[in-house]
């Protein structure tokens, strides 16, 4: 175990030395595309509990639910990103993230995949690749080993 950790750390350290610092992203699926948010911003991944619809709330708010006594507002990430809608599935998950005001928000996603480590030169800034017209919510494009990962700016997303 200790050796494993050591070698892992050793590998990481070598990578950092070779290619700059590593950032970790949680990869998930929305409307068939792979998205990523910075792992440190995610507090917990949940199977969706019953969600209560809040009338009069904006359309990208699904509703509220209780997570061990904590009241959480759940956002529909598809709607917020103007993606086509799809019914919830067995694989749907809610990502909990704490925003600056201290409120805990839930982000409804189709499916959670894995944690991906990216170095700075594996990330292309959004405006450089996609031009100026890109959604303000997109931070950049990650290209770890042949996959395309749309990196989202959680700060901008939860700011509404």
């Amino acid at each position, binding site marked *: 175990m200790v050796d494993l950790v050591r070698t892992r750390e050793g590998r990481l350290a070598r990578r950092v030395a070779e290619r700059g610092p590593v950032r970790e992203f949680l990869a998930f699926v929305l409307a068939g595309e792979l998205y990523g948010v910075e792992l440190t911003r995610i507090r917990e991944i949940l199977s969706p*509990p*019953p*969600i*209560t*619809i*809040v*009338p*009069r*709330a904006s359309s990208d*708010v699904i509703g*509220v*639910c*209780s997570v061990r*006594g904590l*009241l*959480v*507002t759940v*956002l529909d990430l598809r709607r917020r990103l103007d993606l086509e809608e799809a019914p919830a599935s067995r694989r749907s998950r809610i990502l909990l993230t704490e*925003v600056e*005001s201290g*409120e*805990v*928000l839930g982000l409804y996603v189709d499916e959670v995949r894995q944690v991906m480590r990216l170095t700075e030169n594996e990330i292309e800034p959004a405006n450089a690749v996609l031009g100026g017209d890109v959604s303000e919510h997109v931070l950049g494009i990650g290209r770890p080993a042949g996959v395309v990962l749309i990196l989202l700016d959680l700060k901008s997303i*939860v700011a*509404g």
Partner: protein
Amino acid sequence: MVEPTDKAREEFFSEAQEIIETLSRNLLALDGSLKEGALDPSLVNEAFRAVHTLKGLAGLFGALKMGQLAHRLEDVLDDLRLGRMELSADTLDVLFRAVEVFGQILAVERRQVEDPLTSVDELIDQLSALGAGAAHRPSPAVDYELDPAMLAVLTEYEEHRLRTNIEQGLRLYRLRVQFDLATIDKALEEMKERAKRHGEIITYLPTGEATSPDAIELDLLMASRDDLATLIGSLGADNVVIEEIPRRTRASIAAGAPSLFPRGTSIVPPAPEEAASLAAEAEAERAAPAEAAGSLRSVTQTVRVDIRKLDLLMNIVGELAIVRGQLGRVTDRVRSEGQRQLAAELQRLNRSFERRLSEMQDGILEVRMVPLGQVFDRLARVVRQISRELTKEIRLVITGAETEIDKLIVEELSDPLMHMIRNAIDHGIEPSEQRKRVGKPLAGTIALNAFQKGNHVMIEIEDDGKGIDEQGLLQKAIQIGKVEAGVARELTRDEILALIFVPGLSTKGEAGDISGRGVGMDIVKTNIGKLGGVIDVHSEQGIGTKMTITLPITLAIVSALIVHVGEHTFALPLASVSEAITFDGTGVRVVDGREVMTLRGSTLPLCRLDRLLGLRDAMRSPRQRRFVVVASLGNRRLGVVVDHLVGQQDIVIKPLGKSLSSVRGFAGATELGDQRVGLVLDAGALIEEVLAGVELRREGVRAHG
């Protein structure tokens, strides 16, 4: 600030806050006694002690600015209590300013930001200027046949009291009292207490001549207006000998010392070289109250608790209530499976659980309750300050300060109330010449009344000023486009008065320095609304204005009626529900675009929740029996149409997150058991939305949507 633990810091803040509030109360009382012309010395003393304790506390926590200010303030209060300085209204202004500045310091310390706090230095300079005027005066005590042994041990304060009493023409008495050693503390206190009716015991000294080894003899020096016979009648006993201390005649001074009270040097006013020893005594005197406080603390069995901890406990109670509900369902299942005996046993346990739980809930609620006096004291200070700024004489009459309400509500109340009081003084109470002309007493009266009414606390703010100029208000509303001229004619008086809560409307022609530009009342209303309360306004021109705030007693846990509308479940706090009746859709009439029905002879406006909230139409047959829940708040009523009444449940209301702050009509959400969350309807907001808005009525009720 050095780095004490968070907990210690919190302790520091709450303790400092308490002391500052005590100081504020003392100053207010001083202000009152100054106006009556009879200064109560014990008030100056208490203020002095409060500041002294604050200084110690500040030192302990490295709150430098606070320490410096407290030190200066202590000096001034010391001069006041020792009679080196006269208390005037201007001096009091500076002292009140200190209360304010202490508040600022606390706020800055709490946020842990860098702030030069220039106001502190300014105030310290002001205080120093005050202190410079203080002076020693010769003691008139030389004129009395006083025991030098007693005079020698007088502290500066006692000396001052002696002097004041003599100057006020009181007589001096010596009470020689035998006390039982075992009970002396209590007996001496009783003696002092009884003596209070006649005057004041300035000091006491053991004579060293007791008749038994278990007794102690004290000489008490007392000043009184009453004559010897009265005192003997009231205080005399077997163990008490009372003598009047005679004034020295010129003859006796010339003849030299009498044998009983030999003349000594110490009756001469303190010489400069004695100042040091006097100062030391004063220090000892200052230390004494701290000791007293220390011993007091050991007997008062109170703890200070962070309200968040109580919230946590309340949450647990709420969750237990859910468990109880689940137990009930299990019991039902056991019964339906035929195990009657087991079910009965479970039922019994469940009931006992329920009882204990509700006791626990009441207990926690009780702990959260604080008297409204806490916020009223602060308001009294504001009244004094504003009335001096505007040179309007104001009499503040407070009733019901002991009325209790949730601590959190009290905290949120102080700003809105302060604003309303400012308005009352600035816009309500007329200048004195005008009051004179219309034959009102020169001093305006503001009454602050609080009382409990069922599950609500009512707070009234009433002034005897000129009342609200309804026509002026209406004209202004039309002018700035808040009301259409055509609509204006149809408005009732109450609807016109309610315009003061519309943003941008101010009743005074020009904006006052004090209450600003009419941006206040709408915010006041919003803030009261956030607490689940409503404001009603009544006004008679020339007579005065009365604002009535209706508030729930607590926000922590409430009984609620659970209702269904379509597939949605809502909770409606029972405090705002007066009754529920069946509703078959007949008897509904439309008046001025609003649905109303007749309930026992009076008109009840209706609100169809599904339409108001824009819910998906539920499948229901037109003949289906539904219900009208009558919500009432203040003097307004609204019939809320729902599909089913599910039952009553105690709920813990949790506020909706910031991201939903624009959504109107809900007080929050609550867990209903089996992991489900239900939204809690805000009866006040619904009533408001359906009944109030002059504009809303025109624009349609979906304006908020």
